[in-house]
């Protein structure tokens, strides 16, 4: 739909009023800050937390464990721990969310059920995290419940268990929605055909239904994995200092530690990991696949 017949001046004017303002905004407030942060990641922390030259690779070397005093894998371990954490969270949301998507699609009250699943997600993120503190704290709901049966209270907060629970809780709808969309489009005649040909229920599901839902699953997995990998709020509030993920490292460097150079390098490592994953995904799924992430 390109009206190429228009004069160059008119073309320029049209772009100027449509594309330019938004593009300029993204350039100034996204591309330029990303570039600034890239520069910062090659600088050093000066006195009072300022950034000083000369350019150096020291921040990245330190992140990957190569310090002047020898090999110290502190941050590498935190990164590995964060990846492991995000993987487990993704697996748990998949176990909860995949059957749920089928249940919604096959329900007679589809719309209502979908709304019920999404509604908690629209309440403020912090409130949902906070609620889990109230449930898990020493004199919280779980321990009050155990107390009614004369059972000993559990130390559930702060803990990894609490962080896992709240993270799965927070990102579950991100997985359910794309999987549900895929389930809605499943061609069930393939499933029937497989059963007619003598495949058992499990085998016909595995070969006729699961592959059809795979695009939705992959989109959902990315939508859970990426924010879980980058979280710092959930681990900060429910781990209360005992759970340190890569997001917490970045936040501390920009907060109390005030080493913006190292913090920038850590942020770039996280971003690099995410972009690598997305690039691999986009290569297979294309722009249509990227649209599934919105």
């Amino acid at each position, binding site marked *: 739909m390109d009206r190429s017949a228009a004069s160059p001046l008119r073309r320029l004017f049209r772009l100027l009023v449509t*594309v330019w303002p938004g593009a300029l905004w993204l350039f100034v407030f996204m591309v330029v800050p990303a570039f600034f942060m890239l520069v910062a990641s090659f600088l050093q922390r000066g006195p009072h937390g300022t950034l000083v030259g000369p350019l150096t690779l020291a921040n990245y070397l330190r992140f990957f464990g190569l310090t002047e005093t020898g090999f110290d894998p502190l941050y590498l371990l935190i990164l590995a721990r964060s990846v492991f954490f995000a993987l487990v969270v993704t697996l748990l949301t998949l176990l909860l969310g995949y059957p749920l998507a089928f249940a919604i699609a096959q329900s007679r009250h589809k719309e209502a059920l979908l709304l019920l699943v999404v509604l908690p997600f629209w309440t403020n993120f912090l409130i949902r995290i906070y609620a889990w503190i109230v449930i898990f704290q020493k004199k919280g709901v779980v321990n009050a419940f155990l107390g009614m049966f004369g059972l000993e209270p559990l130390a559930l907060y702060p803990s990894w268990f609490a962080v896992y629970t709240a993270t799965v809780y927070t990102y579950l709808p991100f997985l359910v929605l794309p999987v549900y969309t895929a389930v809605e489009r499943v061609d069930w005649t393939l499933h029937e055909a497989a059963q007619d040909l003598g495949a058992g229920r499990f085998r016909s599901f595995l070969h006729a239904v699961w592959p059809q839902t795979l695009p939705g699953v992959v989109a959902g997995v990315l939508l859970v994995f990426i924010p879980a990998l980058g979280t710092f709020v959930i681990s900060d509030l429910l781990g209360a200092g005992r759970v340190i993920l890569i997001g917490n490292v970045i936040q501390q460097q920009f907060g109390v530690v005030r080493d913006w150079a190292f913090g920038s390098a850590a942020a770039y490592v996280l971003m690099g990991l995410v972009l690598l994953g997305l690039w691999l995904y986009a290569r297979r799924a294309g722009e249509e696949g990227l649209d599934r992430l919105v």
Partner: protein
Amino acid sequence: MRLLLRIHTLLVLVFLYLPIAVIVVLSFNQSRFGVQWRGFTTAWYEKLFHNPRIALYAENTLVVALVSTLIATVLGTLLALGLYRYRFRGKGLLRFLLYVPVVIPDIVMGVALLLFFAWIREATGFFRLSLLTIILGHVTYQLAYVALVVRSRLASLDPALEEAAADLGAGGFATFRYVTFPLIWPGVLAGALLAFSLSLDDFVITFFTAGPGSTTLPLYIFGSVKRGVTPEIHALSSILIAASMAGVLLGRALLRRR
């Protein structure tokens, strides 16, 4: 199998609503500490309404959400329209850039903006951390969401309608005003509603771009929770839960009518 699926659904729904129910119930509990039920009270709500700081934080939150949504909706809609209609250099790059705020962890965007504002401030004195810097940050990701939502609406449009308008002598602006815009309006509205609720909900970007005197409700809740759990926060949370649920239902009704 059917039964198992039903039980699973029921359990997940309990998991989803238990935390919300706990907060709402406890906000009416007389006990200041712990979760033992000591009788019904609305005292925490009254205390909340007499706290002038809460009103200020609520106002800050709403100002940020309204202003940023307005800017992002206009810019995002125009951007989507330009991407749909015209061919130009750098179009592929721009399309890629639109996905970045959607998929990148928000902490990365937050610290990049913090660094950017700090550097500009040092050089020019502009961008003191305030409501303005929060708004600038919010628009940046909202803009991408609005553009993507409007674009998907444009993609479902029948190009013949615009061509017919042009054939009948309508200029570019008239075509937009009387044909394109009424058709994509539900998409624009959906994008704006999404942007608005994203802004209300945002903690991370706000956390890194807020300065003294620009506290929003999520920042206040975060600070309070770090100091400990209190019934006032239960009450504030309950109000926000009710407001957001009402907002979602209203938004759905609004979109359905179109």
